[in-house]
């Protein structure tokens, strides 16, 4: 009869690494996306103001 070893700590470490990478990357992406979208909207609103003042 074979006894199954207790390998739960390795399983925990493996999935911790997987989720740290995935969540970290997603956080980084959404942060960069929000920043760049904010910069674009500021630029666009400045452009509209300049156009209005020209008129």
């Amino acid at each position: 009869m074979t006894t199954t070893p207790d390998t739960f700590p390795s399983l925990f470490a493996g999935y911790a690494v997987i989720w740290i990478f995935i969540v970290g990357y997603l956080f980084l992406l959404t942060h960069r996306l929000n920043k760049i979208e904010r910069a674009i909207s500021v630029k666009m609103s400045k452009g509209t103001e300049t156009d209005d003042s020209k008129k």
Partner: protein
Amino acid sequence: MIPHWHTTTERISGVAATILVAVALWLVFMKVPNEQVMGAVQRIFYFHVGAAFGAYLAFGVAFITGVLFLVSKSPFYDSLNEAAGEVGFLLCSIVLLSGMIWAHSAWNTWFRWEPRLVTFLLLWLIFLAFVLLRTYAGKESSSAQAAILSIIGSSTVPLVWLSVKLLPQASQLHPQVVEQQGLRHPLFVVAFLVTTVALCAFTIWLVALRSRIGFYERAILHQE
């Protein structure tokens, strides 16, 4: 201007990935029985192999967009190439690290110089160079070099795939589970397929999300 199909792909893959990853996690942790020899750690297999398939998919996209960029010089393909290479590198890192943790538990060693592990490390190193080039060499000046590097890197994927056949199975530790029909329990097969599809959908979503940032950055660069 971001094409309409790109936005649609991003939305559909985002929803599909969220649902499928949740189902995959439920299957892996709640449904699949413990493997008898390795115990609980065998559950790393599903995300380890799924992430490898996701990485291969991303590298496939990097290869095609790399060629298309060199032919057309379109910033659209450049953004996609940058995104696919970066996402592929992330998934490659996940595969390497989760594999090392699993190997330490199952083989009592973190790494072994055998064909599959060495070729995969080589793939990871090429895309590490790609990410460093993209990050530090400037957006537009490095595009052609990065595209060529991504083509070279992606060309090593078949080598990684076939590497386990270079030596007899008895002389290497890395198993050929899928090729040799090693998944005996039907739930192992279901969990494996669901996880692989989930991580491929997740890869598509990440590439779409990352390439949107690239489009915006290039649009700002051209306006200035």
